[in-house]
């Protein structure tokens, strides 16, 4: 052990974070749900539940099911809508010394543009995370994030609409994540976050019905971690903008794998459900790792993968 002050800070797209631990969209509400467990001030950044132009009811229940080392969710992006978010949720979020990154989604490029325009200039928003895993209703319902050309167009639209740091969150439900990442970078994204959930399914053998009312849902948790890590590593070979890694990170060891592979920061989601103390344990674990190796800054770990 050393008494050296450790520097865990990282800067992503101009957003300075005291450490690389971010809480993932959809797993932390609007910053209030874990208030009795976690001091929001210790977090690197808070990513809020995905918002849309209008409030959304989301899918019918059942919405979640546990799977081996993971869970499927089909929340259907239920959210309070843009204006309510700004009026009722931002005042709470603003009080912490932690950057707030607003996750948002649309079903047309015009939606994304309107959202980005309105969010720009709202006091207390440090950056945007565009969730492009959603279907493009105008163009046959294919997800924006599964086609390099469509991913590029939506990114370009958002880029022109905002001066805020822009993170684009990628879906893993693609053949070549590197190609999508490259086109999103070229369209002006400042950073990438990956991965969103893998589409999955579960069947109840007693009733012969899908367990989820929505039939399919997004798989998250430790089950997807090796896939997420591979995709982060693959993406980093194709882009030069910072990458935020996520998918199944439960502890410091998991987080370090992403950092060593080159992710500049990471998000945790499902881990919070299992262990609300995870942020503390992960940050402590990263500190001990640095101390053990006699390092003073996290930057000495990022991208140190030996191949």
């Amino acid at each position, binding site marked *: 052990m050393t008494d050296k002050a450790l520097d865990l800070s990282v800067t992503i797209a101009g957003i300075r974070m005291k450490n690389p631990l971010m809480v993932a969209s*959809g*797993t*932390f*509400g609007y910053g*209030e*749900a*874990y*208030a*009795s*467990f976690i001091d929001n001030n210790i977090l690197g950044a808070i990513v809020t*539940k995905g918002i849309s132009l209008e409030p959304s*009811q*989301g899918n*019918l*229940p*059942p*919405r*979640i*099911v*546990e799977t*081996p*080392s*993971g*869970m499927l*969710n089909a*929340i259907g992006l*239920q959210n309070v809508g843009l204006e309510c978010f700004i009026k009722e949720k931002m005042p709470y979020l603003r009080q912490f010394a932690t950057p707030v990154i607003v996750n948002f989604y649309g079903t047309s490029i015009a939606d994304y543009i309107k959202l980005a325009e309105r969010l720009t200039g709202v006091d207390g928003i440090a950056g945007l995370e565009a969730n492009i895993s959603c279907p493009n209703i105008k163009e046959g319902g294919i997800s924006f994030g599964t086609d390099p050309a469509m991913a590029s167009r939506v990114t370009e639209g958002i880029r022109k609409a905002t001066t805020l740091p822009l993170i684009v969150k990628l879906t893993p439900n693609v053949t070549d994540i590197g190609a999508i990442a490259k086109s999103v970078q070229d369209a002006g994204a400042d950073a990438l976050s990956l991965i969103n959930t893998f589409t999955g399914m579960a069947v109840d053998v007693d009733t012969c019905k899908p367990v989820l009312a929505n039939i399919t849902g997004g798989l998250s*948790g*430790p*089950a997807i971690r090796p896939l997420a890590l591979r995709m982060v590593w693959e993406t980093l070979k194709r882009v030069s903008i910072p990458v935020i890694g996520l998918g199944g990170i*439960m502890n410091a060891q998991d987080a370090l794998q992403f950092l060593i592979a080159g992710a500049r920061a990471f998000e945790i989601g*499902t881990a*919070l*459900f*299992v*262990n*609300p*103390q995870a942020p503390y344990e992960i940050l402590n674990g990263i500190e001990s790792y640095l101390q053990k190796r006699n390092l003073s800054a996290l930057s000495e770990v990022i991208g140190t993968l030996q191949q």
Partner: protein
Amino acid sequence: MIHNATTHTAELVSKREVIPGTFHFVLHAPALARQSRPGQFVMIQVQDGTDPLLRRPLSLSGTCGDTVELLFQVKGRGTQLMAAWEPGRSVSLIGPLGNSFIIPDVIKTAVLVAGGIGAAPLLYLAKILVESRDLQREFFFGAKTGKERALVEGCIVNEDFEYVFVTEDGTQKFQGFVTDTLAGELERKKINAKGACIYSCGPSSMLKKVARIAAAYNIPCQVSLEAHMACGVGACLGCVVEARGGFKRVCADGPVFDSRALEWNYD
């Protein structure tokens, strides 16, 4: 802040198999015991590691001094693993979670209606209700078999409650579903809107009928619901139920709801 839940490391003090496949746990968790109210629940970690991954929601069936009690039925893998726990084991709990039953100041008659293991949160409520004087207390308990009487007997002092046992096996005075008997007994006992309150927990098909009877007799009714949960703290929106005016989260807006606030369109 919407709740005061934290993570507690509790010690399993005692374990009793009340009837085959149903266990009563007493856990030493002083802070949790102090803060909890009837109707609230905990999310319990089944074991370290990632499978089973999620915590299991369980109602508190009581508190006593520095301890909290759970009453649970073995359903699947998680509860199966819990059934093998031995006293002395250290257990991670999140709680207290959710809202609680409301006991109006003017209450004259409390009617508890439990279906099977749904008795768990009502036992906690019953223990609080025996502290109020001048209260008529009724406990309707529906189960498959007469053996299940053991779930409620012994947990609360008998004289404090009037019991109505209804079982499908015909071993009790009443045979069938508890909801077949409820309306008739409310009539016979002349229980009506004046100062009465129904509290119910059990399968959703039963709760739906209880809600209908309560509405017919104009008696306020609070029901405790179940839903599959991931976070238990209101963050994931995974546990919603259809309520008047939109979805409500069972974990954070419930688990106790006024029956009139819900849309009763499931099974």
